[in-house]
């Protein structure tokens, strides 16, 4: 498999610059020096908690945001370079599925108008061809074609998300960036949409970048997974490796925190967890304050992302060779919940 899309040292800052009187304005680094590749035909999962920069990263990949530094390449060509990729040329190949289906559909447009927009503006399809194509798209997401004349508020969350997926598919892209596509849905509907995404991927030879905060969902759909914390990639690896042999203490904390039906005993940190102040990030590893393995080195030097075959980690003290799950009392987690 070859890299279809690649990010090289992508950084996105918000704010910054100087005010009218020369005072520097505060800067937030939403994404910091992120590098990774997306291979043709795979599903790359991106997992992290709120504030880790995963949504900003998603918007960078589809061109809704521009990187402050670094570049995103699609088959070697810079996607943010207007000489190489116009907005439309990029949108034809990379599409986006939004988290909240109700707010991503214009309440005053019919489904037909919403789905036709990419056909008209991206594919320049004549009217006769559009009709057939719309029927195909609706069929692909398992919605009846009569629903085309309806307005978004007449749909349930799951159906609205199918329409969001249909709009993304309409442009016949190669890559779909899915930003929390199922987290606004009820669990029974979530499964419908996840199964649908799975079928569509095979049907249309798609490549997915699947972003979610839900570890179980990411695990069930991804080939490779990238864990983000505070704007940086802290660990990357094949799905089975990452979940069976997590190397970064943060990945371990995430995994032990997730409740599993029918199983009791999630781990929790003893100190209340807080992210560092994004306006004044500490030197060194952002996770050091929460990390049981943190040393002075961690608090001074930011660990680089080290690649080791298929896996990569950004940690001075990776938990290599330490079994998972860790025996109680030895790791990042305090004792199990007793009751």
């Amino acid at each position: 498999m070859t890299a279809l899309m690649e990010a090289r040292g992508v950084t996105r800052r918000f704010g910054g610059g100087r005010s009218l009187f020369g005072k520097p304005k505060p800067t937030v680094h939403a994404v910091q020096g992120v590098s990774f590749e997306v291979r043709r035909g795979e599903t790359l999962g991106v997992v992290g908690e709120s504030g880790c920069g995963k949504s900003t990263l998603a918007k960078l990949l589809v061109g809704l945001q521009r990187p402050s530094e670094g570049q995103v390449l699609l088959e070697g060509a810079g996607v943010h370079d207007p000489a190489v990729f116009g907005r439309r040329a990029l949108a034809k190949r990379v599409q986006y599925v939004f988290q909240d289906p109700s707010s991503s559909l214009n309440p005053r447009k019919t489904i037909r108008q919403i789905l036709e927009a990419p056909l008209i503006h991206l594919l320049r399809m004549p009217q006769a061809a559009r009709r057939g194509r719309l029927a195909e798209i609706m069929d692909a997401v398992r919605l009846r074609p009569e629903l085309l004349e309806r307005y978004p508020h007449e749909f349930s969350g799951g159906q609205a998300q199918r329409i969001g997926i249909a709009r993304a598919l309409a442009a016949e892209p190669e890559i779909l960036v899915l930003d929390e596509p199922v987290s606004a849905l009820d669990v029974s509907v979530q499964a419908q949409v996840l199964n649908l995404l799975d079928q569509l991927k095979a049907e249309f030879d798609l490549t997915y970048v699947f972003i979610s905060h839900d570890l179980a969902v990411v695990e069930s759909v991804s080939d490779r997974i990238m864990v983000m914390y505070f704007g940086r990639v802290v660990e990357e690896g094949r799905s089975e490796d990452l979940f069976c042999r997590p190397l970064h203490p943060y990945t371990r904390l995430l995994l032990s925190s997730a409740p599993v039906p029918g199983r009791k005993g999630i781990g929790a940190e003893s100190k209340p967890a807080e992210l560092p102040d994004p306006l004044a990030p500490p030197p060194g590893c952002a996770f050091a304050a929460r990390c049981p393995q943190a040393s002075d080195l961690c608090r001074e030097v930011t660990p680089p992302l080290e690649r080791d075959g298929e896996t990569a980690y950004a940690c001075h003290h990776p938990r290599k060779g330490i079994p998972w799950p860790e025996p109680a009392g030895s790791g990042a987690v305090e004792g199990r919940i007793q009751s």
Partner: protein
Amino acid sequence: MSGAQAAAGAPAPAAKRRSGRPSALSLFARNQLAAFGAGLLLVILLLVLLTPLLPLPDPAATDPVNRLLRPLAEGHLLGSDHLGRDIFSRLLWGTGVSLLVGLSATSVAAIFGSTIGILAGYFGGRADTLLMRGIDMLMAFPYILLALAIVAALGPGLLNALFAIAIVNIPFFARNIRGVTLGLANREFIDAARLSGKSNVSILLTEVLPNVLPVIVITVSTTVGWMILETAGLSFLGLGAQPPAADLGSMLGEGRKLLITAPHVSVIPGVMIFLVVMSINLLGDGIRDLLDPRLKSGALARPAPFTAVDRPVSQLAAASIQDDSVLAVEDLRTQFRIGSDVYRAVDGVSFDIQPHECLGLVGESGSGKSVTALSLLGLVATPPGRIVGGRVLLQGRDLIGLDAAGLRAIRGDQVAYIFQDPLTTLHPLFSIGDQIAEAIRCHRPLSYKEAWAAAVTLLDSVRIPNAAGRAAAYPHELSGGMRQRVSIAMALANDPTLLIADEPTTALDVTVQAQVLKLLDQLRSRSGASLLFITHDFGVVSEVCHRVAVMYAGRIVEIGPTEDVLSAPAHPYTERLIACVPRLGEPGRRLEAIAGLPPAVNHLPPGCAFAERCPHAEDACRAGEISLDGLNDRHLVRCIKPRRAAS
């Protein structure tokens, strides 16, 4: 494929059926003041339109002999003015001119103001700064002075007055519309349109404008009256309509000198201005109420302090069976009545909670789990909510039917709530210490100082670092996890016997959720309170709940010890609900999606509500009421074919 069935089940029936909500037109007709305004305006407009056809004397024809005739004089219905001109004729022509100028000025202001507002709001950044600072400069002049300056520069005349009024009112439109556009520009559907390849112009015209239009209409409808008044003001000062032409303002101005000797010359146009402006304003308010989404959502309806109770008399007398349960809910029924539709949100729910116990209430959105929790203390908004049956026994005492004071004494004292989003439940303007102290002082006679000290102790007990210092912090200064800890501290303030937690960790990150769950569990076992834990997540249930009740379409379909229900679910819905959630550590497992959608609770089918989606359903399932029967003494299920044999 499940998806195909899901699509087939939806939303055709819901859309075909006329909903019980009244239509926009009937809502408007119900607003009597607005209807009166519309009627009055219609009469005035008709008169003005018919003026050229009516057999009226020339409004400019002078007749010095018959000057200053009183109203009802022969040949002059409303008398004549100081030049002997017919006032009735002049009034109708003048009203026409005033209305025309007012409407034209509004249109000009609306078009230019809205354009500026939309552009500034959509593009933001430098464009916004430039446009809005220009608008600010326009606003910095007193409006009448500005209008006078414009007319002085352009020369007096009706058209110039029109321009002056329009320019003066542009900022009003620009600022209103910019605010709305700013909110829209960050919405995801704008990003989606961009990704669909639409250009900025196309997005502005086809995505933004249709959503801004109602606001423009509202602004227009509430400013037309004001613009007519301003035009009249300029004409009154002699800067508008020039003689012999007349509008209402200039008629008023001419009559001013004769106020004592012939008051009717000025009073009649004055009354006309009053009628025109009043009718337009009443109509405008009506249109605003109709179109404004904030008012439509019921923001104007003030809910009662507790839910209305409307239950059969027979249930009042029923003596309670004394047992040691903290809470016993018997056949609770809560409905929402909207228009002619009755939504059975909670339809015969019964459960009990023992001391020190944590009962989980699980269901998807719309299953009635939150309404159940809110009904316990009469917190469901009335209208439209209404408790129509059942009993809620808190340590043997029926809470349904208590008066406001009785409920208030229990709320936050014996029974306390923790809600999903602490950012909306904590008051943004008071420090967290203040808010906890207030919760304490509501129920206990403590001084402020003592209550503050108690608040600090509570914050410490929910493991907030540096509690004494943090007590003075405001909610926005805390992270989501910290805020939820504050909510928990507040709920624990008066040592409740029952805590009701409604999705307390759903808005939190997974590592923070783990901590909050652990904290809740520790506090519950330490304080001895019982816990009603509402969630949609079976993983969370396994973590903290002793027993779990599963709700579907307003009813409990299964209730039993957590391990039993999760390891051997008896109801097909429970079974499918557990099977369709991805589990950590089992990536290969195929997700068994549940086909279709839950039924709408205003049109529940007879028999089992899940039958439509159930792979095991048979005719008997759809025939009649199905009771909640015991598989054993602790595990009950509402199914005629439970998934495992009774043990």
